[in-house]
């Protein structure tokens, strides 16, 4: 049960990209979705979320546009680009390899 801010920058990117895979969302929705799917374990703070989103946008892995949200107000919706999909795959592979390795070390009595 780690503190929410223990999330390393790289893993946050991975989570965001995965969350955006099915559909475009705005920042609030992304945070809520991650929180929900992880069973309230991972609570992303705004302080890390928005810098991460902007960085992903600068890198060209997500693209954004302003549209009307559920409440009727304008919000900035992020969606995954084709390059972003590729990045997601490579990051997922990395994560799997990393976690498997950590697993091995930890279960080694």
């Amino acid at each position, binding site marked *: 049960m780690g503190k929410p801010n223990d999330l390393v920058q790289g893993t946050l990117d991975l989570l965001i990209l995965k969350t955006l895979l099915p559909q475009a969302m*705005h920042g609030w929705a992304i945070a809520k979705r991650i929180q929900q799917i992880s069973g309230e374990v991972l609570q992303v703070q*705004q*302080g890390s979320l*928005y810098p991460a989103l*902007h960085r992903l946008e*600068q*890198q*060209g892995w997500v693209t954004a546009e302003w549209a009307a949200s559920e409440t009727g*107000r304008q919000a900035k919706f992020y969606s995954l*680009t084709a390059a972003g999909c590729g990045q997601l795959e490579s990051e997922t592979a990395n994560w799997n390899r990393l976690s498997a390795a950590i697993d091995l070390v930890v279960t080694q009595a």
Partner: protein
Amino acid sequence: MRGTAKLAMRMQMLFQRKKAAVRLDDELAFHLERQIAENLAAGMSAEEARFAALRSFGNPALLREEAQATWSWNWLEQMGREVRYGFRTLGRAPGFAALAILVIALGIGANVALFTVVHSVLLKPLPFKDPGRLVMLYEHGLPDDSEKFAYNVVAGGVYSEWKKQNHTFSDLALLQEDSESSLSGSGGQLPENLKSAECTWNLLTTLGVRPALGRDFTAADDSRSANGTVLLSWSLWKRRFSGDPAIVNRTIYLDTKPYTVIGVMPSWFQFPRSTTQLWTPVYQDKPEKVMAMLDGHMFRVVGRLKPGVTAAQGVADLSVISRRLHEAHLDNPFISRRATGKPLLEHMVGDLKRPLYVMLAATGCVLLIACLNVANLLVARGAARRKELAIRAAMGGGRLRLLRERLMESFLLSAAGGAAGLLLAYGAVQWLVHLRKDMSRVDAIHIDGAVAAFTVGLILLCALFAGLVASLSTKDTQLLTALQDSARGSSAGHAHTRMRKSLLAAEVGLTVVLLVAAGLLLKSYERLRSADIGCTTQNVLTMRMGLPGARYKTPGPGPANFFDALLERVRALPGVEAAGFVEAVPGQGYWEDSSFNIVEHPPLPQGKGLFALNRWADPQYFAAMGIPILRGRSFDPSLRLDKANEIVISDSFAKQYLPGEDPLGKHVHTISKDFTIVGVVGNTRYAIGEQPMAMKYFSLASGEQNGGTLVIRSSRDVEAQAMPVQRAISALDRDLAVSDVLTMDQLLGKSTLDESFNATLLAGFAVLSLLLAAVGLFGVLSYIVAQRTSEIGIRIALGAQREQVLGTVLLDGLRPALFGLALGLAGSVAVVRLIRTMLYQTQPLDPTVFVGVAAALLLVATAACLIPAWRASRLDPMQALRTE
């Protein structure tokens, strides 16, 4: 895909940054709203919901900054911010900024102007095809081992042999540089004397140049039997022939002979001199005998090396040919056996190298002094903002950040100063080009890309130097002391003071070096001008004229009668005390020489020959010019034409070649005749700065000479005689033109223009530096006094005499100046060795100059320090203690 998206993102971030910032705010506001809504839904009250949301949100400013930190082009935005901030800080101290900009503008302006000249004249290649392969060739005059005549003009016959026998040059062309032609008047225009050059037909092809209009010479034009052809210069064509293209194939009259204009040269073509206006074929003009002479040196030879051949190889090849000629005519002592050569660029501007580089170094010194001054000013400002900087550093402003700020300020000042300096340089270059139209390659002087790059480089250098030197004086360890400084602390800014004093000492040192160099050049110039040239120079007017050979055949009665009549008329003019005519006056140049032998002496061993300068003069010339007749008399005017077999020799001739015997009555065999020595006259110098050479004078009445200088001496305003004399001349011959109407003073001034210009310019730089140093000294001492106001106040209150205070403060200010003086004098000793070749009759370590400079500096330094010192001594102790 990603690439284009990324690029689009970068473009957006560059041009729509503000919009993006606003959007970010909206985005964060939206998030906050949803959080509040969630909180409300969870059951909190409106206020609670809001506070809880804000609390979880954190610092909005920090959030915004962190998000923006991920954007591209951040460094640009930061730099923009720093520049704006720099402008604002400088704007708060406009006086300081203006002063610093002015100082830098002067320093950079002087440097850029001189660099323009150096780059255009010395470094840019000549505007000919493949100019690196062009060589100017000379004969090494005898004796072989002496440097004096190492680069002598070439004989026509030697040129022909070189051209026939060489293996290393693809083309060799010959020209006579200093001819003059009289262009006859036409269409209402007066006749005028023009500088011309006679050349072989292949000169232009050797240089790789084509005429702008018309055609080049052909081999057919360059023979004795051909009709006269001429090429005009662009400026002559524009000025005299209104730029009419129909000038091609028209006939003009030079020296009353007809010449067909075959073309016009391009406007940038100035060869061999910037004053050359006409080019005519040499073989068409000169008799075959003259062109075949092996010992009559009068021409310049230009060669184009074959590809792959070096200049050394080419010259060696020609030397072999020369040696062969010398060996084949061992009885003729005036046939050189060696050839020498120089790259053409070096021939044209070699003399200018040292003076120009010395000037460039001087402007470098001025720039350095300017930078030191600005650094001084920056240190002063840093000292004033000490507390502010300490607080900022304590609050977390990184040292690098503060340094960057300093550099940005200094860069802004340098950039503004550099821009102003570039404008100054432009003006200075225009003035220089106008003043020194006589300088080689003056037409090539332009401000171009290289100069602009140099300016930018100087700006950066200035900024770095001034900024870094200024920040040296701030140290982290002083933070605490700066914050703790109470108002009464007299230890305030000690490090600043030390730094400022050492900067000042450096400034003064450089100034002293410049002053010494300038002093030496000025003294050398004064020696040069006051050197006795051997004749009267006051109230003497000169003008040159040439009688056209077609109408006044030489030798013959024509010229002799003309000059007799002319001198009679001129002497009859009111106000004219004396008049004479000579081939060339003292100071007008070398002109001609000829070999001779003394008939009464035993014959010289084979291979040895004597030569001395020749001058044709009228009998009253010596009296008119104030040249003393030491023994015997001048020419007998009744002996004319082939009866004119008298010769007058100069004193050095008598001492050199007839030592210990009475020269009168002895005979000299020269120019194929025997002459009787009738008089010995005082020595004259053929050029200022040269030793007098042995000279022999022939009577003008022989009719051999058809041109020269008319001299007129008048007790009244001699320049007013110019018009009456010219009228007298045109009364005798309407088509005759005169040129170079100058008083002797003006003539000598022209020939020393280089030296006077260099000395004046350097003196100007030295005075500028002195001014900068004085201002710096004044500033530093005022600053010290301001720092020590309370201390001085206490001293006065405790009973110190005002004079004592004055003395102490004055001494405190003079100490760095004295230190700088010592440094400067020591440095000068090393530096003056470099300008030794530019000095005339002046020792590099001339004590008068050194002492004079030291005295001048002390005077100026004392004057600069006096005001702050006097103000310190007049302090009201109560006021002083109450300050701060």
